[in-house]
């Protein structure tokens, strides 16, 4: 156990190297620039590939190429850069390739600001690319948790042949925390990449990486197969944490940095005699709907808190199925709520309504 003080973006770079990434392709954008900067040094030292691409569009297409060739490939970006990658992500899903994308959210829309935000929840979970596809999305709340999900994310991508996104906000990317890069990670069992387009002499037959099909029946079957795969992910890969859930008066739903802020509020409210629990989604796709069945009937309401004007709240309403009243509290523009705001949102439950 060797703890060191590390910036989030640097820890991401170190974790990716530990996970055996073969290639990183990326482009500078605040607040994730340290990711390509550190990897531009670490990867050549490890005999691996680093390319600063000419744009986020080019970067995701380089990832697509390397992934199709059977290698572990990743990129990172933020908000407006992730917007540029949507075409590539749809192709990668349609072609059933593994890869890892780190999304460090900043405020929007458009050029927006460079301060932290969670306003790309829709972008990550609903997707801006075309067609019926999903990214598998992890939303860690700390640098240590991010390190773990980078490693597991690469494995999950390989198992399901699908992109995995690590969705964090600018706070996690930029802050420094005490972390242990040597926490053991047990790799998952991975299938052989017999499908990779790497030259005919390396496998039998001809391998073509492709998402095109002009025959509707053929394309429909492909889509049904993708959905079957997504159902497997829903069955096996949901991750969430329950905090303080024995007979809570209220339940907060929050992820990432917002969950850490909520933890402080929960503590302070507890001292005031108000018992508040939390469902913290770790996978936001697949969303942990099953956690909501565990809310006891004594609960007076669910408060969703986000650094946005309400995106995850839609998934909470779906999971809640009209059972408990839902209130929302959020900040935008790069403003980060402090714990007292979350406390006030509970104390005035339902009066600080969703905007």
């Amino acid at each position, binding site marked *: 156990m060797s703890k060191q003080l590390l910036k989030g973006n640097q820890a991401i770079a170190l974790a990716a190297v530990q996970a055996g990434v*073969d290639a990183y392709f990326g482009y500078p954008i605040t607040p994730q620039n340290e990711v390509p900067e550190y990897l531009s040094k670490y990867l050549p030292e490890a005999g691996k590939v680093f390319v600063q691409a000419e744009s986020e569009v*080019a970067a995701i297409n380089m990832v697509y190429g390397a992934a199709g060739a059977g290698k572990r490939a990743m990129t990172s970006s933020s908000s407006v850069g992730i917007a540029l990658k949507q075409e590539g992500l749809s192709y990668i899903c349609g072609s059933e390739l593994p890869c890892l994308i780190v999304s460090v959210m900043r405020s929007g829309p458009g050029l927006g600001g460079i301060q932290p935000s969670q306003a790309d929840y829709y972008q990550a979970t609903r997707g801006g690319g075309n067609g019926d596809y999903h990214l598998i999305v992890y939303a860690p709340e700390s640098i240590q948790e991010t390190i773990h999900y980078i490693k597991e994310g690469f494995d999950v991508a390989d198992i399901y042949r699908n992109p995995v996104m690590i969705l964090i906000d600018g706070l996690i990317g930029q802050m420094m925390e005490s972390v242990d890069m040597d926490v053991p990670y047990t790799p998952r069992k991975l299938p052989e990449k017999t499908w990779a387009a790497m030259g005919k002499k390396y496998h039998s037959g001809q391998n073509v990486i492709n998402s*095109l099909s002009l025959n509707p029946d053929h394309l429909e079957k492909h889509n049904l197969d993708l959905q079957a795969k997504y159902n497997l992910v829903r069955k096996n890969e949901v991750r969430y944490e329950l905090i303080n859930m024995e007979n809570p008066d209220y339940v907060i739903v929050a992820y990432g940095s917002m969950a850490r802020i909520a933890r402080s509020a929960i503590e302070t409210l507890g001292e005031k005699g108000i018992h508040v629990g939390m469902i913290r989604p770790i996978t936001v796709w697949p969303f942990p709907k099953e956690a909501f069945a565990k809310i006891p009937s004594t609960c007076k309401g669910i408060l969703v808190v986000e650094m946005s004007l309400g995106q995850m709240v839609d998934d909470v309403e779906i999971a809640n199925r009209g059972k408990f009243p839902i209130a929302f509290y959020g900040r935008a523009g790069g403003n980060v709520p402090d714990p007292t705001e979350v406390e006030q949102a509970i104390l005035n439950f339902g009066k600080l309504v969703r905007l």
Partner: protein
Amino acid sequence: MIKYQKTKGLSDKKTHYCPGCTHGIIHKIVAEVLEEMNLLDNTVGVASVGCSVFSYDYFNIDMEQAPHGRACAVATGIKRVLPDRFVFTYQGDGDLASIGIAETIHAANRGENISVIFVNNAIYGMTGGQMAPTTLEGQKTTTSQLGRNHATQGNPIKVSEIFSQIDGVAYVERIAMTSPQNYRKAKAAIKKAFSYQLAGKGFTMVELLSTCPVNWGMAPADAMKWIDEKMTLTFKPGVYKDIDHD
């Protein structure tokens, strides 16, 4: 003695290309060169979006389909992680010079060891005959129905000339696919481009002036004549860069 027969580099699948389309001839030349250089089993080709979108059904090699315009970025990803494989892209004028111009220029600028087969027929074939970046001044297309006017619609882009100025480029040649003599020239050029890649010399491109009989509204042989008489006035055939001889 067999003097000419179908190359093993092409599959048995009948192509969907229009009668007389030079895609068929260019596919043959590329496949013949891959076969003669013993590269068929060690190649990853990148298919682009255009009439040649189904090229993975015709070439007897592993291939990856790229989004429109992105073939050179996809090829970069492949070649960087598999540097000992032979990697080429096969792109039309819309794919390479319109939506894909940034990815193509930057792959060339980085000197990526990939080979680009550039099929320039001055029109968008697959989508039904719209104006392309290489459409000639005055040429009528479905989106330049009065004839391309440079004042509002830009000028035809001279790709080989542009790429000859980029340091990472090892070899660029432009050839008109209009005769058996030019067939031999094209084959020699493609062979040279491919051998430069194997020798690690950098980015190579062969631009083939090609026909689109249906969208030009001409019979195949007349379309080849139009290349010789009209297209070559704007797009002069020749070697634009060769690092071994410059």
